[in-house]
Structure formats: structure tokens, C-alpha cells
């Protein structure tokens, strides 16, 4: 390292700070609930070739990789020589941006001293794009709402008002959508402004040397981590709930000297409902999971992502092709970490956690249609709850904690303040964490109802009702999720619409994580603590751990 390298490192640190600044600004200005509660956004800086140099670490990993590829695609659609300062391009094509119509990607060319030097980009989740709305019921992408192909949203600083009107006219949340588009524009502009100021301060005319330094250092660091692993191919099959019948996800993980190949060949075909996953999104979550264990200290950029390659046959459920419906692609997308950990665990058993609840248990809720004419309160809630994470090789799983997504859970008081609902319970579910040498995290039990004499609509899209999180190396499975309504004979399925009638109570139980290692090897003192704290009942301790007490 020379003095020049120190300067390059300082500039790299600066770029990382700039994308975080961009990301924060976007979250704070957002209207879409999933963005402000969960940070479902992305912000990045790219060199003139479209290579990603830095990306904000935000709430959800669903944008990792997708953004790196999306900017390359978008950049290639428009001639560079026609771009001018103040232009911004946009699309929400699920196969370019981030897997479903709600995610809008904006890209802005950055000019310094009259020359194109790079791009800033950001992605954010807009609340509603028309169609059948948030839910898996659409039978193709056209049912799911408005698709905007790559286009120029801002022309030399002038917003294309017609485009904004089209997005508003096709939405149940026009004002929120407009606000979110403005937030995205501000985010791109702020990033570009700071990039230019940095170049000015450091006296550089282009990003070439910096770009080489970042990409090469990161690529080398990632390959070093990969080369420390044994070589070969490992396979895993994960059974998931699917829509109305269980399906299989397949993965083959091949570790070579300088790259990792992940192939989803063998996975089920696409379904007729909107739970299909475009490959960019499946890759985002699976590469995120791999990077948590292989070189997590290297920031996300073109260099650290390049050694991870993901493939799948066209038309399989993890490589859905247009016009397959994809609105709820997150339910299965968030299961891919468990799929790839099943492979990686065979390579590095002491580094990989057991399966977890994984799919977030979101609970979107709305007033019923008649409420409008009756004059009853209208509301829309997007509550998010989580189950337990898988037991870690050395540590218990985390109870009621999001993984792989990074969402935040909801608070009871703020929820009850804005919607006519009331909670009767929100507590951990004893015995829901899979037994093992280390225990899986516990799920939670939520009970709620409408406060007034009013029905409410619930839109479900969750996993692990029929296929609980499996344990690893002798650890037992966690408890499955379960959804019930008091007074009804049958449990409610994990996907679809549900009308909770006045006076009924919804019981929503999130899954527990799997255990790790033989339960008999559990430290007796920690088992005793779990029993005392009420996390494990004495009966379960006897049954699952062989406890004598």
C-alpha cells in the first residue's frame, strides 16, 4: 500500500458513507409503509461502465445483486452520448429492477467537468400499482398492475409530468406513489451531488483508478475466502408449502478455486399464482446468505459479487419468466437461504445455522369493501411479524427475529392508534424453538380482533405452515406456523385472502427455528434456565432433551 492507496481507501470509505446518506434520506422521505418500517430500499454508486462501487446496507437484502445487474441493463438500453446532466431513467420491470412491480429503480448519470463519470441509482417499494393489489391472486403479470418499461423520467432536471400522472392514475395510493417517486429523485440527485463534490475535493477527474481499486480489492478478498473452502458440488432439496400444494426447491452448490456456482435445476415449475420468483430476486437472497458466511467483511460491489454466479432453468419457480405472476415473490425468495445453507452445511457444518422461520410473517390488513358505503373507518395496515431464527452452531437461535430479511416488527400501541384493531396477546410460544445442543429461536403468538362491530380483510402469504424449519446435525425441527380464527373448525391456509368477522379473534402463530446438534448434548444449566424462563416446558424438556428433572 502506498500513499495513493491510502487516498483510494479514504475515497472508498467516503463512497460507502455517501450511499448510506442516500439510503437514509430515501427512508425518511418514504410514504410506503414497508419502506419506512422495514427499509425496503437500495441506493448505490456505479462507475461509467455500470459496475457497482458501493451499495447502502439497508433493511432487506432483496436488492443485493439485483441493483448491480439492473443498472447494467438500464445503462445498456440508452446511448451514453445522449445522456445529459440532470437526466434520470426509471423502470419497475420485475425482471430488470427487483422482482415485482412495486419496486421502482431510478438511475442518474453523473457528470463532472462536462464528462460522464458514473451513475447513482436507487430502488424503493411503492405501495400500490393497481391490478389486483398486494397478494398472490393474479394469474399473470398483467393482473398485478402497471409495468413501466425503461424510460426517461427526468429530462435535464424537468420531471416528465405525464409519467407521474400515469403512475398515479393506476394506483389506489396515488399521493403516496407520487411522494415516493419524488423521494427517489431526491435520492439520486443527492448521491450525484455528493459524488461530484468528492471528486472535486480529492482532485480526481474520473473514477477509473478508484473503481479498479474497489473492484479488485473486493474480488480478491472474496476469492480468498472462497479458496479456503473445500472444492466440489453439494446438493440440497427444500420442501416448501407452495400455494395450494407443496413443492420442491433444488440447489446444487459448486465451489471452485475462484468462484461459486449455484444452480436451481430441478426446482418445481412456476405456479399459476403470484408466488413465482424472478431469478434476480432468488439470486439476491441466496447470495446474501452465502456472503453472511463467506467473506461478510467485504462490502457489496461488483468485485465482491462477481465470484457468485447463480443459474436456473427458464420457467422454474426460481427463474420465473414474463408473464408469470410474481407479486409475492418474497415468500419463496426468502426461503432460498435455507435452501443454499443445506448445501453449504455439508461443506462447513460448524459455520452454518439450522433452518429458521425465514419467510417473514407479514399481515397486511384492510377494511372490507362495504365499510366505504357504510361510513365505517377505512384503514390499511401492513404489519410484519417474524418467527425464530435457526440455532447457530455455537449460539441459540434468536426468538421472534427477522432473518434473512432485515425488517422491523410493528408496535402494538402505534398500530392500535391508527386502525380499529385490538391485540389480546403477543407472546413467545413456549416449546416452539427446535431442540438441540443449541436451541432454535422461538416463534410468537399474536391474537387480535376488530374493536368495533366490523369485519376486516387479511391477505396472507406465509410459508412454513406445512413444512417447519428442520434442525441440523441431530437438532429437532422448530414448531410450524399456524393461523386460526376462533370458533372455526379448520386452520386457515398460509396463502390467500381471509375475512375475519366481527367478534372473531385471529390467532397468528409464527414458526420457531430448527435446533442444532443432539439435544442430549445441551448444557443442563442452559436447559434449566430455559425451563425457568418458561421458554421450554418441563414436559418438552423430558420428551425432546431427555431431561430427568
Amino acid at each position, binding site marked *: *500500500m*502506498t*500513499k495513493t*492507496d*491510502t487516498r483510494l*481507501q*479514504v475515497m472508498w*470509505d*467516503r463512497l460507502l*458513507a455517501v450511499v*448510506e*446518506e442516500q439510503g*437514509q*434520506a430515501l*427512508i*425518511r*422521505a*418514504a*410514504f410506503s409503509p414497508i419502506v*419506512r418500517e422495514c427499509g425496503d430500499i437500495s441506493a448505490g454508486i456505479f462507475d461509467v461502465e455500470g459496475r457497482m462501487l458501493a451499495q447502502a446496507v439497508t433493511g432487506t437484502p432483496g436488492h443485493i445483486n439485483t441493483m448491480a445487474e439492473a443498472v447494467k441493463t438500464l445503462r445498456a438500453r440508452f446511448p451514453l452520448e445522449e445522456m445529459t446532466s440532470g437526466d434520470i431513467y426509471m423502470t419497475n420491470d420485475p425482471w430488470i429492477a427487483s422482482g415485482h412491480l412495486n419496486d421502482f429503480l431510478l438511475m442518474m448519470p453523473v457528470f463532472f467537468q462536462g464528462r460522464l463519470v458514473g451513475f447513482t441509482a436507487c430502488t424503493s417499494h411503492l405501495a400500490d400499482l393497481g391490478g389486483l393489489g398486494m397478494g398472490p391472486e393474479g394469474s399473470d403479470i398483467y393482473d398485478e398492475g402497471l409495468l413501466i418499461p425503461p424510460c426517461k423520467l427526468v429530462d435535464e432536471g424537468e420531471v416528465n409530468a405525464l409519467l407521474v400522472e400515469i403512475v398515479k392514475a393506476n394506483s389506489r395510493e396515488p*399521493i403516496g406513489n407520487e*411522494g415516493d417517486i*419524488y*423521494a427517489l429523485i*431526491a435520492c439520486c*440527485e443527492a448521491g450525484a451531488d455528493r459524488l461530484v*463534490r468528492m471528486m472535486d*475535493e480529492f482532485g480526481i477527474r474520473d473514477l477509473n483508478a478508484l473503481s479498479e481499486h474497489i473492484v479488485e*480489492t*473486493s474480488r*480478491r*478478498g472474496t476469492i480468498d475466502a472462497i479458496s479456503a473452502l473445500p472444492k466440489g458440488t453439494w446438493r440440497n432439496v427444500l420442501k416448501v408449502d407452495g400455494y395450494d400444494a407443496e413443492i420442491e426447491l433444488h440447489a446444487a452448490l459448486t465451489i471452485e478455486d475462484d468462484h461459486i456456482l449455484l444452480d436451481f435445476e430441478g426446482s418445481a415449475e412456476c405456479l399459476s399464482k403470484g408466488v413465482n420468483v424472478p431469478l434476480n430476486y432468488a439470486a439476491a437472497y441466496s447470495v446474501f446468505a452465502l456472503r*453472511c*458466511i463467506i467473506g*461478510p*467483511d*467485504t462490502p457489496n460491489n461488483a468485485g465482491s459479487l462477481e465470484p457468485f454466479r447463480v443459474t436456473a432453468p427458464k420457467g422454474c419457480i426460481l427463474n420465473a419468466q414474463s408473464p408469470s405472476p410474481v407479486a409475492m415473490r418474497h415468500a419463496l425468495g426468502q426461503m432460498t437461504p435455507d435452501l443454499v445453507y443445506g448445501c453449504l452445511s455439508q461443506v462447513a457444518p460448524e459455520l452454518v445455522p439450522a433452518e429458521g422461520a425465514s419467510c417473514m410473517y407479514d399481515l397486511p390488513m384492510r377494511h372490507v369493501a362495504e365499510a366505504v358505503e357504510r361510513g365505517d373507518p377505512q384503514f390499511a395496515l401492513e404489519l410484519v411479524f*417474524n418467527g425464530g431464527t435457526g440455532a447457530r452452531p455455537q*449460539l441459540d437461535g434468536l*426468538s*421472534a*427475529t*427477522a432473518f434473512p430479511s*432485515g425488517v*422491523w416488527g410493528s*408496535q*402494538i*400501541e*402505534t398500530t*392500535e*392508534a*391508527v386502525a380499529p384493531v385490538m*391485540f*389480546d396477546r403477543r*407472546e*413467545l410460544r413456549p416449546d416452539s424453538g427446535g431442540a438441540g445442543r443449541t436451541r432454535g429461536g422461538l416463534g*410468537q403468538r399474536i391474537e387480535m380482533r376488530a*374493536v368495533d362491530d366490523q369485519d376486516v380483510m387479511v391477505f396472507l402469504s406465509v410459508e412454513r405452515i406445512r413444512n417447519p424449519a428442520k434442525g441440523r446435525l441431530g437438532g429437532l425441527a422448530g414448531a410450524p406456523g399456524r393461523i386460526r380464527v376462533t370458533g372455526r373448525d379448520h386452520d386457515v391456509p398460509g396463502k390467500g385472502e381471509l375475512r375475519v368477522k366481527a367478534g372473531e379473534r385471529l390467532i397468528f402463530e409464527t414458526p420457531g427455528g430448527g435446533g442444532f446438534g443432539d439435544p442430549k448434548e445441551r448444557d443442563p444449566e442452559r436447559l434449566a434456565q430455559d425451563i425457568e*424462563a418458561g*421458554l421450554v416446558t418441563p414436559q418438552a424438556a423430558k420428551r425432546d432433551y431427555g431431561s430427568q428433572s
Partner: protein
Amino acid sequence: MAIDIGGTFTDTVLMDGAAQILATTKTPTTPEQPTIGALEGARRVLRDAGAAWSNVVGLIHGTTLATNALIERRGAEVAAITPQGFRDILEIGYERRYSQYAINLAKPDLIVPRTRSFTIGGRIDAQGREREPLAEDDVKALSASLADAGVEAVAICLLHAYANPAHELRLRDLLSAEAPDLVVSLSHEVSPEAREFDRLCTTIANAYVQPLMAGYLADFEQRFAGEGLQRPILMMTAGGGMTTIETASRLPIRLVESGPAGGAILAARIAQEAGERQVLSFDMGGTTAKLSLIEDFRPQTARKFEISRAERFIKGSGMPVRIPVIEMIEIGAGGGSIASVDRLGRVRVGPHSAGSEPGPVAFGKGGDQPTVTDADIALGFIVPDRFAEGRLEIDVDAAMAALLESVGDRIGLDAVHAGFAVSEIVDENMASAGRMHAVESGKDIGERLMIAFGGNGPLHATRVARRAGVRRILIPRDPGVGSAVGFLFAPVSFEIVQSRYATLEDLDIGAINRFLAETCSAAEAIVRMGAPSSPLRQRRVGFMRYHGQGHEIETELPARDLRVSDIDGLRDAFEREYARQFRRVVPGMRIEILNWGVSVSSAEPELNARSNADRAGFATASETRRILCDVTGRRRDADLFDRAGLRAGDRVAGPALIVEPQTTTLVSADFEARIDDAGSIWLSRVEEETA
């Protein structure tokens, strides 16, 4: 007199009625009985100033005792009581991992384990209506369970208690009747804001330190009275105001982080004297650097901060505490921060610190990892025989050797350039943190005046400023005891933020006015105890947002009853601030108000106007020193000055070092220094660098 008890040192300052500092001293903190060290400092400044206790008209005290009790886990055995069905508010929290890629992260320890989490029947709804009566018959059994668990203090947090505290109050009365010695903290008194997890955490933290702090404060008061103090003692709070011993004993959580607040108060005071409306306060010590923004002479405040983080400098890894605080960002960048090289060959500095023990390698007290101070020594910025008035021997060779071994050899640099790299990284970290903090507040950093203090602030100010785009810096007098000096400028004040949902378009003005008046008189009663006759000032704010957003913007309300005619003005004020932060307003949106804040404070001491001396001329140095220039990275000579020898109006061209007992000011080659009438050093960036 002001006494600031920190982790390592106790700073004491004596000031006269004209805000002139008469004496300052630093004495070692006596952790077992902090009052002993405080008495020592008090005696010393009285002796140095030739004053007696009868001359002392007020004593202001700030202490890290509450903070340390939380960090070192020396508080009471606390239990939590929440409504039936909600035993796990604490365990569940926000269901979030604070670090995206860390598979093996541990959640923070939130003080109360599940075995001491109890519940009671009864339910209030979001509008404050009772949906289910309090299960009074169960209180006897609950009290017995508390006794069985050896509980000393209890945190009661019932849902929506901010909207209707009846159940919390009744439960306290019933429990106290059963167990008179039990210390009880009620969530609606500690933090009357919606969000049960945050409110419970705040209430637990309060209950945890309450027995300890109440005992300490009673003892402190008694000993100082015994020493001869005839006036009441006021306690410094995290919000930057003072409060009485009585209030502090009841709500000790408000004392947490009061030391750093003193620094921000000082910076605000100097900003006002200098007429500077946009200021960045930069306080760099041995372990951390703290940055805060000062707008219109008021430190920016926040309603939430974190304690006992699982990872000290990772946001979200700690226990949230919702009280009014001076907002600052604290990062692991101090003189003792350790430098290393990571797997990818990147130089890293902090967050680990060698602290004062073992300290930097150059101090020869057992430290073997190079620190920021070692880098500053290698670069020539610290004059060994003048450091800490020559009381500490500096081993330059040991610092160089450690820099070479831990940093230089690994990336192919000599010791001095390794020191340069360490400096570049740590200064960039601080500048980035400052910029990031400004962005999160919707502010810009570039046009601000930086006010730098703390043991390392004056030494790193120009380097951080250059990276942050800041062009002007002020180094006050006595920068090493800045926090304690700040205490003397704080008003007696109390702030209450309370949740009450409303929308601007159908605001029930009568009800809101009654609500604000009640909140106001509660705050006023507390302030009156510490400021019986001073005129009082009021500030009212609403925390507003567009319906559907998650982030609120603080909007100032008139300091009187609201009128229907105010509503348009409030909308305008909100949208002005919104447009400033996010470039454009969103048309046609409803505006909602979630929380209301009222702060009442006494008048502040008179200002000293600052004027600049007419005479101006470059001072001549009698000595020079070889340094590595931080602008060019090349070796050159820097002029060396004693701060005490510089006069008002003197100018100093960079590069230069201005040395004083507690610190050194580095005037970089691209800066020029000037001394004003008050003895402050003004540093300005020179347009064309002549180096």
C-alpha cells in the same frame, strides 16, 4: 461552581457573575465514593481563586455515575410489569438484527430477564378508554412473586398509559401498600410516549439506577452542605438543562450522558456570543469523538438514544431510552483508538480503544498497539516535553516501532507514513460521521463554524474540517474542561414530550390547549423548584408528518394557547421545513401530529459580546518543529507557540502548533489562526494553499 465527574477525571470550574472563569482543575475521579474527588476539586478551585463557600451562589453538578451504573451493571434487581398477554414486549422488541451480515450476533442485555417479567390483567385502549378493569385481586399474589424474586425496584409499563395513566397509578398504590420499600417507576411519568418497547426500556433503565442515584445524591448534598455550601445544588440533565436533586432522584435516567451535554451547551453559548447561527460542535477525547449540530444557538435535541449497546458504535444494538437529550453522534475515534490493518489490507482505526489504561504505546504504561495519539506523535504534532505540562514522558521511538509493526510493515509504509494513513482514516471517519449525522437531520455541514474542544479536538479540528468541507473553526479557552464550563451556562429547565394523536385539519383546539396547559404546568412546577423567581421561557413543539409517513418533523408552535388562525401557519411551517429537508412538498396530503413537546426554562446568564481587537499582525515564533504536513504529506517546519503567550489580534500562519497545558491546536498549512478578545483561537481555511 460546576463539577463534572467523568470516568477518569473530575473537572471543576469556578466562574464569577460576569461569566469570567476564575479557576479550573482536573482531579482524579474516585470511583468508590465520587463525592470525595468532587470535594477535592471544589476545595482546590476555591483556594486557587481565593474564594470561600459563602461566595458560592450556586453549584451545578453533572455525573457519569448513572451512565456507568448502566454500563457496569451495578443497578438494582428490577422486575417489569406489563399487561396480561404481553409478557414479552422486551424479548420481542422490534424483531430486528442490528447488523445485516452478522450470523452470530447477540442481542443487547435489556436488564430484566424473562424470569422477572410479570403481567397483570386490565386494558386501556389507544383512546385512553378502559376496556378491561385492572385485576386488583391479583396484586397480592403479584407482590408475593416480586418478593420471591428478590426484586428491589419495579418498572410498570401498561399499554397506552400515556393516554390514561389510571391503571399504572392504581397499581403503584396497591403494590406500595403491600411492599412499602419497593421502588416503583411508572412508564407514563418516565416517558409518556407511544411505542411500548421503547417506553418499557426507558422505565426499566430508570428503575435500575433509581435506588443507587437517590442514595448518591442525598449523600452528595449532605457532604457539600457539611463543607459549607449554603445554596441548593442543581443537576445537569442529558437535555442540556438543570434540575433539582428531588427531580433527579425521581427520574435519574435524565442524568445519563449529561457530561457531553455540557460541551454542547458551551458550544451553543459561544455560538451566541459570536453571532454564529450554524455551528458544528466537535468534542474529541481519549476514547470517542462526539459531534452535534447547533442551530440558532440551540443544540439540536432528540427524543431517543441508546444505552448498553451490544456493539458500542452500531446503531440499533442497544437499549432505547426515550427522554429529551441533546442529539449527538458518538464514534469510536479518540486519542486512544487503536489502529490495525484488516484482511483486505485496509487500514482500520477503532472502535477499540486503549483508553487511559494501558493507553497509547508512547505513554509507556503497557500499551502495545498503536493509537491515534501515537500517530500524532509520529507526525510531529505533539511536542513530547510539553505534553501534559511535561508530567508524562513520551516515548517517540516506541510509538514509531508499533506503527511500523502493526500498520506500516503490513502495507509497505514507513512508520511516519503509517501514522499519516492512520490519521487520514480516523479523520475521514469523523468527517463522515458528521456529514451522516447532518444528513439524518436534514442539514448540511459545509457552511458551519466548527467549535472544537476536548483533549484531542483542537489537534484534529483542521484535519476533520477539511474533509467535511468546513472552512472555519473556533477553539475556546480551556478546551480541556469544556463540559464543566458549559454547565455554568445551562438554564434550569424541564421538557415533557407526550403522545396524543391529532390531524391538523380537524384539530380540537380546545382539547389540545387544555392538554398543553396541563403539560406546561407540570413542567413549570418542576422548574420552579430550582428557579423560584427567575422569569420563565416556554417552548412548544409538535412532531408532525404527512399521513402515511414514518418520520416526524419537529415544528415549533406558538408559546401560548393555539387559535384556529394558527393552523395555516403551522401547515406552512411544517412544509417549509419539509421542503428544506426533501426538496419539495407533497401536495394535498393530510398532516398529522403524533407527539407534543413542552419545555420550560429559566432565563440564561447574560452574554458577553465578542469584539475583535483592532490590532492585527503575525506573531513570530521563537521555535519551530519538524512535522509531516497533513496537506501535502511532505516534511516541513511548523512554528511553535505557547497559547498563553499569544495576544488578542495575533495571527498565526499555518503550519503551526499552539501548545497549552491540556491540549495542542494544530494550525494546518491550509489554515490561518487569529486570536480574538476573549482569547479564543479562530482558524480559517486559506483559499489558495501556498505550501
